């Protein structure tokens, strides 16, 4: 499938992206007018959330393809993307909660996007646990595919319900996680970091899919060995 060349290329690009992202995030972009320096965490938090939504979208698409065509490659991508999605979501929530501490004085507030992301994290942790518990690989893949599809379809509904629920409690305050102003150089920092994390996601995906391919290769070798 994708050879080692692509993996190495993505790896190098990801590193370059992350370094420039750090540079723009810390030095190039000015501190936020309202939130001050702490807003720089957003250059980590926002890209992580957006890329994890993308990762779960990839799970959604490859799960449908797996149910339709039953080819191992789609399952390998779905499983890998879900795993990376869970990692990115967990880190995003950690960053968001660390951001909340100085800003709101508490580690956790029921902010709409933070809550939605946490629910998504729970759903896909369930996905990974389900995959780990089912011993027959093809059944595990099928169950995963179904849960991946339903989990992703649930996202818009979760978001709407949480946003409605939130607005009932606290009118949208300026201090919500996310760039409060749209100053151009801040946007540069945001988009550089976003590109960096997309590359990182690609790198992890290729690397993790190669692990899945090796696992299937091992099963196939055992098949031939025993045949």
């Amino acid at each position: 499938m994708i050879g080692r060349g692509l993996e190495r290329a993505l790896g190098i690009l990801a590193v370059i992206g992350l370094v420039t992202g750090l540079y723009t995030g810390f030095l190039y972009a000015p501190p936020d007018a309202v939130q001050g320096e702490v807003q720089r965490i957003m250059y980590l938090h926002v890209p992580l959330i957006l890329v994890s939504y993308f990762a779960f979208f990839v799970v959604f698409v490859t799960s449908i393809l797996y149910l339709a065509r039953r080819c191992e490659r789609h399952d390998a991508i779905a499983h890998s993307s879900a795993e990376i999605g869970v990692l990115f979501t967990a880190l995003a929530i950690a960053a968001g909660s660390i951001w909340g501490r100085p800003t709101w004085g508490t580690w956790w507030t029921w902010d709409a996007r933070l809550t939605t992301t946490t629910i998504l994290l729970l759903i896909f942790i369930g996905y990974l646990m389900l995959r780990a518990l089912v011993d027959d690989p093809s059944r595990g893949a099928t169950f995963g595919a179904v849960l991946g599809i339903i989990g992703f379809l649930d996202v818009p509904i979760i978001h709407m319900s949480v946003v409605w629920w939130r607005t009932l409690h606290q009118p949208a305050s300026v201090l919500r996680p996310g760039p409060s102003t749209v100053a151009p150089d801040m946007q540069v920092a945001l988009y550089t970091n976003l590109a960096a994390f997309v590359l990182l996601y690609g790198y992890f995906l290729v690397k993790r899919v190669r692990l899945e391919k090796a696992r299937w290769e091992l099963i196939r070798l055992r098949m031939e060995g025993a045949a």
Partner: protein
Amino acid sequence: MGADPAEDGGGGVNPWPYILAAYLLAAVGLLCYLLSVSRRTKAMVAQIATLRRFSKDTMR
């Protein structure tokens, strides 16, 4: 449903330890995942190599 904390606007608190904490945590998390994936892959590739050598011996 849960009282909302007073918003102190992050004025007096020194934000830098929090910023560093967030970035460090992310770096550590990503690195650990990278190491775990490559470790698992190495182990798998080693198993495949031994299995292939084993089947090559029986084939001769």
